[in-house]
């Protein structure tokens, strides 16, 4: 690897409307995942583990929980003397202030921040995805091709191409065409929303894009196609490994269930690539004599007297005697009271499932979203 300073810009303004109750009070990157994490922990930990020392986190939508989760970034060792993590909120200037319009506009508005750090490379990340990636591998590919931008791509099943930004490449992995959610895709390489740019080139195109009044100021839709029209050197780098965009309640539930699969490739137990998060200082979990716990992931502070099968329990969850939790995700501080049954559900934070209540069906296809005042089938 050649030397060269990288600044990572992590887009964490995602609203995640299709996640419904999960994003009622917080941005999508702050949604709890995998027993003790929030989705953004994956991108932040990847950046930290890749040795990236400067990172800007762009927040916008309901940022309070996200901001307090990130703090000054100490959980990811970003509380540094030089560099470190900065939260970049939309701000006012003498020309007025406004919300970030699109992904590219969010970076455009923070050009001063990047200029001050004076990097050679800017890495654009999204806080919406669950994956483990060494960004230095992407940088090396970028340097090898002497590219202007290198996009991390993923091979997706052909039937899913309609949901993604699809990229067509030549035999040298040089990008020849972008297709946004095509009905008939020519390739099944999907963009992951992870871009390694040369900063001077990116800067030039951000300015150009901003001058175009008709632009949505979006990387995928506007900036990258504009660069392609100008014959910039654009390459792909293929990522192989677990990657999930939890867009819906169902896919959220599935992604949590993936963790229970012994063959899952995310492997949270890898000590060489830890996923870090803010700690809650809870005591260990207690598994009672009358309980049955199999095929499940359970976090600190839980107290289990009932049956837990094929489920993911977050911190401080209580499952009382005779209660059954099966095929479910239960977020922090919830209580499943005596003899209550919860099947195929996502139970929100702090929900109390009353004694004897039954939620969901043991052999159904539907996923049930459980809050304190309602149960909604998805």
């Amino acid at each position, binding site marked *: 690897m050649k030397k060269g300073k990288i600044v990572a810009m992590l887009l964490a303004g995602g609203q995640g409307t299709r996640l419904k109750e999960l994003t009622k009070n917080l941005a999508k990157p702050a949604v709890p995942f*995998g*027993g*003790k994490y929030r989705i953004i922990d994956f991108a932040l930990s990847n950046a930290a583990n890749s040795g990236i020392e400067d990172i800007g986190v762009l927040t916008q939508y309901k940022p309070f929980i996200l901001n307090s989760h990130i703090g000054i970034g*100490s959980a990811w060792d970003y509380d540094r003397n030089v560099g470190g993590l900065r939260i970049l909120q939309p701000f006012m200037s003498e020309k007025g202030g406004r919300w970030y319009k699109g992904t590219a506009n969010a970076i455009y508005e923070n050009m001063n921040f990047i200029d001050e750090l004076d990097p050679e490379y800017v890495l654009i990340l999204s806080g919406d995805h669950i994956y483990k990636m060494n960004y230095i591998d992407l940088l090396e590919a970028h340097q090898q091709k002497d590219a202007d931008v290198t996009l991390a791509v993923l091979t997706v099943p052909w039937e899913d191409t309609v949901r993604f930004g699809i990229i067509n490449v030549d035999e040298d992995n040089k990008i020849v065409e972008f297709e946004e959610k095509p009905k008939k895709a020519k390739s099944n390489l999907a963009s992951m929303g992870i871009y390694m740019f040369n900063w001077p080139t990116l800067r030039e195109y951000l300015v150009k894009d901003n001058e175009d009044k008709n632009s949505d100021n979006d990387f995928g839709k506007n900036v990258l196609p504009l660069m392609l029209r100008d014959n910039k050197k654009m390459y792909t780098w293929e990522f192989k490994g677990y990657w999930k965009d939890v867009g819906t309640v169902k896919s959220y539930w599935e992604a949590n269930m993936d*963790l*229970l699969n*012994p063959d899952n490739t995310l492997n*949270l*137990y890898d000590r060489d690539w*830890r*996923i*870090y*998060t803010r*700690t809650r*200082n*809870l*005591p*260990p*979990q*207690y*598994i*009672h*004599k009358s*309980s049955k*716990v*199999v*095929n*499940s*992931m*359970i*976090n*600190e502070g839980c*107290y289990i007297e009932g049956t837990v099968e094929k489920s*993911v*329990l977050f911190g401080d969850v209580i499952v009382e005697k005779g209660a059954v939790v099966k095929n479910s995700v239960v977020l922090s501080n919830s209580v499943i009271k005596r003899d209550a049954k919860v099947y195929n559900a996502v139970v929100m934070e702090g929900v109390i499932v009353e004694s004897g209540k039954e939620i969901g069906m043991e052999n159904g296809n539907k996923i049930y979203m459980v809050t304190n005042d309602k149960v909604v089938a998805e």
Partner: protein
Amino acid sequence: MVRSLGIISTANIENNFGVLCKHRPVYMLPYGGRYRLIDFSLSNMVNHGIRTVAVYTGEKIRSTMDHLGDGKPWDLNRRINGLYIVPPITQGYTISRYGDIPQFYSTLEFIEYSKEKVILINEPNIIAKVDLDDAMEHFLETDADITLFYKKIHDPLGNYINCEKMSISEDGDMINIGLNLGTEIDFNMYLRMGYIKKDVFIKLVKESIEKGDADYIQEAIIKNRHKYKINSYEFKGHVENIRNLKTYYDANMNLLKRSISNAVFQENGVVLTKTKDEPSTIYTESAQVQNSLIANGCIIEGKVENSVIFRGVRVAKNAIVRNSIIMQKSEILENASVVNSIIDKQVIITEGIRIAGTRSIPYVVEKNQIIGRD
């Protein structure tokens, strides 16, 4: 509110713990799945507003340094005050190598310059989550020079023989501290914890050094008990007095009772410790777990009963762990069985090996061992 300066010093009882204390002081013993004994003292102080803590480490200092670091988990990494780790001085102007008084004397400037006017002394091998604000109120109201904490113990079975017994007068003054020989079923156990006015503390240290008549601060307090107003404060909560292998084992097993784990983990604030960033614990299809306390980062495929399992432990398929304490990152491989045992950190019990102790004398496996057939 009067803030006190917390002083943690070590009970020199390492010999009672065999290989468990070969490389660590007693206060660094792992406890309750994810803690060290010192975490309970530090957390209780911090949760009661103490902002300056000095830890007199004793000689086995490496694990202490690694665990405490700059005090961040306890919010003691302050610009002003915070955590002071004091390694021992074993030469120079200290008259005697033994006892805590020479150590206090060697850092007397630090104690003199600190803004706090009251010192809280304690030794972390006794876990007692004393409400320090309430105790402080008592200390100030009674205008005592020294207030020592005790717990009323009802001990028909003689479990507390050789613990320190405090004689207390009717109006609550401390008369003396001796050893409980089991002649009475009810006695007052001294918790090796208490408030001392700072100027009294300094005077006691200086006088003891000058006269050479006391090595330990406790000794100095008792010797000078007629000179100062020394009274007592009753702690009514749960106490674990960890003073040998058996009491260490029992104190861990006690946590399987909910009332005790609530008292130890929840009352008077959370217990803080160094985080290890472990993911949640996973229980596979073949896991059978009953009545156990399990920390994060474990992979449980086998059978676990009546046990305390620390962070990052693996119990493989068909392995059995019963009535045992398994410390951090140890692995119990297929078909192995561990009964009535204490397995120190990073031990591997290989396939098919059986180890067992008894509940009164648990079998102990030293740190970093691989136990297999020859």
